[in-house]
C-alpha cells in the first residue's frame, strides 16, 4: 500500500501527513507535561517544608543542558544537510545527536545513583542531618537470642539467618531433635507443622545467637523481641539500635534555638564550633536579609560539609571567639581508613529519629516531582534517540532512493527531539536552580 503525501504537502492542510501527525502528538505532549508542571506548582506552593534550592548537582544538570542544546543543533543540521544531499555531513550530525542522548542518560544515571545512596534523617525536633550510611547501612543489634518463632507458611531461614554472626547455628525443635536450618530441613519442619495445623514452629537455639539486622529486613522490634519481614520473631535482648551517619549537611531551620537542637547535639564539639563559625560568617554576609527570609535561613541555619571541609576551618574567623583547644583536626577522631574520614560520624539513637530515608519520593514531594518529571523526560530522550537511530541505521534504502522522504522523517523525528529539549529548558531551572 502506498501512503499518500509522505513527500509533498497535502493541498488542504498544507502539510505532509507525518508533520501534521507529529504536531498533533506534540500538542498532546504539551498537555501531558503541562499537567505535571501544574502539579509542580501545587506541590511547591503547598509544601510544608523548605523547598530545596541548588540541592541537585548543578554542574551535571548544566552539562546535560549543553548536551541537549548541541543535539538539537545537530539534528536540525542533519535535516538541512540531507536536503542539500550532503550525505556524509548528515550522518555525522545524526551520530552526534544519538551519542548526545547517550551522554545525557549516563549523566542522569549518575545523578539518580547519588540520590539513592544519599540519606536524610529527620530528628524528633524537626532538625535534619543528611549524609551517607557506612558499609552495611543501618543495623539493629540483637543478642542473647534463644527462642525463634517461625511462621510455617512464610518463614524463611535463609532470609534471617544471613544476619546472625554465628556460623551454622543449631536449633532444637519442640520435640527435642537437633536441626540445622538448611533449606530442605526447614521445608520438612514446615510441612509437618502445616500437616498438624500449626501456624508456627518454635525453635530453641542450642547456643545463644547474636544478630545484626538490616533495618529494612525488620518488621517491628521492642527491647526483647524482633520480627523479621518474613514473620519470624526472635526473642532476646536489644543491644544497639542506632543509625550511624557520615554527616554532610546540618539543617537546623526547624529549631528556634539551634544550640539546643538534636542535630546540633549530634555534631560533636569540634563540628559545633565549625558550625558556629559558619553561622557567624553567613550572618555577616547576609545581614541585609530579614531573619525570617527563607534564603537567610538557608544560608545561616544550614552547613554543608564537603569532602575537604575540616572542623578546624573556624580558625579563619578568629572573631568568632573560640578557644584554641577546639581546633583539633577532624581526622583525629575518626578512623583513618576511608575517604569519609573528613565527615563527622553521628550515631543517632532510634528514639531521636522521626523519619529517615534516602532521597527518593519517600523523603519529600520535591523528590516525588523530581523523579516523575526527570524520569518521564528521560524516557522521552530514550524514545527520541531510538527513533533517530532507526532512521540513521535502517533507512539506508530510503536514503538511496528517496532522500526527500527520509528528510521529512528526520524533520518529524527532529521536531520531537526539539520538544524534549524544550521541556528540559524549563526543568533545569525549576528543579536545579530556583
Amino acid at each position, binding site marked *: 500500500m502506498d501512503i499518500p503525501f509522505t513527500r509533498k504537502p497535502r493541498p488542504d492542510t*498544507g502539510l505532509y501527513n507525518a508533520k501534521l501527525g507529529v504536531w498533533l502528538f506534540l500538542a498532546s505532549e504539551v498537555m501531558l507535561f503541562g499537567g505535571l508542571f501544574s502539579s509542580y506548582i501545587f506541590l511547591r506552593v503547598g509544601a510544608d517544608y523548605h523547598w530545596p534550592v541548588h540541592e541537585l548537582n548543578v554542574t551535571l544538570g548544566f552539562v546535560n543542558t549543553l548536551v541537549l542544546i548541541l543535539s538539537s543543533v545537530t539534528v536540525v*543540521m542533519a535535516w*538541512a544537510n540531507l536536503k542539500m544531499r550532503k550525505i556524509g555531513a548528515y550522518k555525522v550530525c545524526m551520530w552526534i545527536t544519538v551519542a548526545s542522548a547517550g551522554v545525557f542518560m549516563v549523566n542522569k544515571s549518575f545523578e539518580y545513583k547519588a540520590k539513592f545512596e544519599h540519606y536524610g534523617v529527620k530528628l524528633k525536633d524537626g532538625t535534619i542531618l543528611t549524609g551517607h550510611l557506612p558499609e552495611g547501612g543501618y543495623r539493629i543489634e540483637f543478642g542473647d537470642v534463644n527462642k525463634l518463632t517461625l511462621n510455617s507458611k512464610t518463614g524463611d531461614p535463609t532470609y534471617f539467618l544471613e544476619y546472625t554472626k554465628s556460623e551454622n547455628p543449631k536449633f532444637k525443635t519442640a520435640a527435642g531433635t537437633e536441626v540445622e536450618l538448611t533449606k530442605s530441613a526447614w521445608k520438612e519442619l514446615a510441612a509437618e507443622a502445616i500437616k498438624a495445623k500449626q501456624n508456627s514452629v518454635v525453635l530453641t537455639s542450642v547456643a545463644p545467637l547474636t544478630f545484626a539486622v538490616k533495618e529494612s529486613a525488620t518488621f517491628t522490634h521492642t527491647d526483647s523481641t524482633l520480627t523479621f519481614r518474613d514473620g519470624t520473631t526472635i526473642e532476646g535482648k536489644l543491644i544497639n539500635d542506632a543509625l550511624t551517619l557520615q554527616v554532610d549537611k546540618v539543617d537546623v531551620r526547624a529549631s528556634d534555638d539551634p544550640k539546643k537542637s538534636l542535630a546540633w547535639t549530634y555534631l560533636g564539639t569540634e563540628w559545633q564550633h565549625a558550625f558556629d563559625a559558619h553561622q557567624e560568617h553567613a550572618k555577616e554576609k547576609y545581614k541585609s536579609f530579614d531573619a525570617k527570609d527563607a534564603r537567610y535561613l538557608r544560608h545561616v541555619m544550614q552547613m554543608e560539609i564537603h569532602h575537604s571541609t575540616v572542623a578546624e576551618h573556624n580558625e579563619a574567623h578568629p572573631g568568632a571567639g573560640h578557644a584554641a583547644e577546639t581546633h583539633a583536626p577532624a581526622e583525629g577522631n575518626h578512623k583513618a581508613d576511608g575517604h569519609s574520614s573528613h565527615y563527622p560520624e553521628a550515631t543517632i539513637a532510634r528514639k531521636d529519629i522521626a523519619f529517615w530515608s534516602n532521597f527518593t519520593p519517600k523523603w519529600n514531594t520535591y523528590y516525588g516531582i523530581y523523579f516523575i518529571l526527570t524520569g518521564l523526560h528521560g524516557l522521552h530522550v530514550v524514545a527520541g534517540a531510538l527513533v533517530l537511530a532507526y532512521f540513521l541505521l535502517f533507512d539506508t534504502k530510503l536514503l538511496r532512493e528517496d532522500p526527500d522522504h527520509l528528510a521529512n522523517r528526520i524533520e518529524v523525528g527532529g521536531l520531537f527531539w526539539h520538544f524534549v529539549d524544550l521541556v528540559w529548558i524549563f526543568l533545569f531551572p525549576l528543579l536545579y536552580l530556583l
Partner: protein
Amino acid sequence: MEQSHDDLQKHVKKYVKIGIILGVFTIITVGLSYIELPTHGLNIIVGMIVATFKAALVALIFMHLNHEASMIYKILLFTTVFVMGLFVLFYLAHGDGLVFTQFDGYPGTPYGGAPH
C-alpha cells in the same frame, strides 16, 4: 516548504548561532540563580523569563514555527489555551475561590501570608 541550496546553507549557519546563544543563556540562567534578588519570587520570575526566551528560540528557529502552515498554529492555539488554564489552577486552590473563604496561611510555611 521547498528551499534552495543557498537558503539551507544560510539556515545551517543560523542554527549554529542559535545553539551558541542558547548555551550563553544557559550560563546566564545558572549565574542568575546564585544572585539573591530582593525576593526569591523575583529569582523565579527572572529565571522563567530567560527559560521562556530560550524555549521560544527553539520553537521558532529549530522547530520552524516562524514560518509554518496555518494548520499547525490552529492546533497549537488550543493547546496553549488549555495549558495556560493548568497554570492558573493553583491560584483558584490557593484562595479557595469557589466557596469564597479566606485562606489564613500557616505560620512558618513559605506561603504563610493571606492572598491579596
